[in-house]
């Protein structure tokens, strides 16, 4: 009974400490938000009196109003549609090619060791630098944005897929061979299920990087899209709408990232350990294979 009393006494003590800590974390976050908003408003007020960065930092309510006007504007949805189409086509095509190349690199050690230094070299290069080549090949229309999106998506997915292939438990591969599975069956029954987690990690990274790739291409040369819209507002010095587009882009990027993270968490919950050491491959494990941008 005494033991039960001790247990009864200690459990709430630990949880209350945790609750206190969580409360402190929430307070810090709230105070930081309030502080940042106050700082922003101070700079905006100084700007409106012509003391500091005149008109560069608009009041927050101006941005909120601009966001509202963007959301009720038909042209915003046309631009959003163009960016979304370029992103979707670019991501799907780039990621599909990357998965196939990743499987190829993962199954052949010689090809992997021969090609990875070159893939790493291009993977660590700012992809924006390839825009002239893409514009020469695909023109300045939406096709070039799709191509840029595909290029951006390719590298994170190929690195994580290759890593996923390398981390597959050898026992699974031996089991497949014992059952005389052909190459296609090995891919669909052994490789693919075993490397779902790293591939999804690559997809998550790829979605975020494709957004940046497409928007940057639209900023340079385009006739539509959210990046183009941002550039136009900047050139016309319409600062509040410019911030509004940035806020909406960041919100959409965060939503895409959050959706992919949830998908990954869901897969994680359903997947058994798949690596040779009984651990799931993590996204951060791809860091050694290449910096992607």
């Amino acid at each position, binding site marked *: 009974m005494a033991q039960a009393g001790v247990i009864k006494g200690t459990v709430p003590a630990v949880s209350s400490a945790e609750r206190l800590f969580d409360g402190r974390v929430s307070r810090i976050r709230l105070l930081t938000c309030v502080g940042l908003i106050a700082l922003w408003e101070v700079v905006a007020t100084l700007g409106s009196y012509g003391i500091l960065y005149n008109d560069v930092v608009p009041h927050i309510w101006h941005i909120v109003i601009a966001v509202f006007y963007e959301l009720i504007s038909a042209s915003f949805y046309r631009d959003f549609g163009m960016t979304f189409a370029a992103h979707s086509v670019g991501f799907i095509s780039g990621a599909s090619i990357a998965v196939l190349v990743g499987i190829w690199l993962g199954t052949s050690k010689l090809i992997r060791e021969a090609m990875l230094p070159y893939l790493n070299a291009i993977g660590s*290069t700012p992809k*924006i630098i390839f825009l002239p080549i893409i514009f020469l090949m695909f023109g300045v229309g939406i096709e070039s944005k799709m191509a840029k999106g595909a290029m951006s998506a390719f590298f994170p997915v190929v690195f994580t897929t290759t890593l996923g292939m390398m981390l597959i438990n050898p026992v699974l591969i031996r089991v497949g061979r014992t059952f005389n599975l052909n190459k296609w069956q090995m891919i669909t029954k052994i490789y693919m299920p075993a490397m779902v987690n790293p591939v999804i990690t690559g997809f998550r990274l790829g979605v975020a990087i494709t957004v940046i790739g497409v928007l940057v291409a639209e900023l340079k040369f385009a006739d539509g899209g959210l990046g183009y819209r941002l550039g136009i507002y900047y050139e016309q010095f319409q600062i509040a709408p*410019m911030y509004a587009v940035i806020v909406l882009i*960041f919100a959409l990027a965060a939503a895409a990232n959050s959706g992919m993270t949830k998908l990954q968490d869901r897969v994680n919950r359903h997947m058994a350990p798949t690596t040779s050491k009984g651990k799931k491959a993590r996204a951060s494990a791809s860091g050694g294979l290449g910096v992607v941008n």
Partner: protein
Amino acid sequence: MTRLHKVPVIVGLFGLLACAVLLELAVNFGWVMEIIVPRPTDTVLSFPSLQEDMDLVGNFFVTLGMTAAATALALLIGLPFGYFLYRREAYGVAYEGWLAAAFSTPIVLLYPLFLVIFGRNHMTLIVMGCIPGAIPIAIQTRQGLLGVSKTLLNVGRSFNVSERDMFRKIMLPSAVPTIFTGIRIGVMYTLVNIVAIEYLIDFGGLGRIVSQMYDNFSIPETYAAIVAVILVSTFFYWGFGRVEKWLRPV
């Protein structure tokens, strides 16, 4: 390097050479339009003229200098901030998620804002390069210090080591590999952002050369400038990878 290790290198080089020869033949036979993809030999031969007209080496040092300045600024911000996040656990928990989220946002899109604030000068490039560099440095500094082995800390305590010596002699050496991983990622993202902004605003070093050569429709020179950027990125990636390997305990 043993003979066995040389095989993939030879295969890789042979593959690269084969691609270059095939491309040369494709352009010669008119299968690929020369105004879209120049002959590899033309690209290589345009390096001297690129140096003469655009001072390729000088601009390399411009990009390098700005990357170094932005990295120094990122280290000045990231390291103390990462240490602060380690020391104050509640702040670490509160801010780490935000930092990770900020790292995945398209910071490069804020360049119009920075142009308006700082103007079209090197300061814009340095500040914009510094932001994505400081975030991984701060995160990895916190992670590195959090990951110090409890056994090592207990050994230090049993020797009655002062707080300062504990940090200098135990925590810092054991966190260095993780911190350096953050620095490597930070430097790469700093370089990527600086070259991207150079290209977008047509100002600065190597990114500006690519932009100007493309605007002039000097196709072999554009390709040569792109190759130069790839070489610089590879050098950075390889160099920092070597140092990181050296710092990591076996």
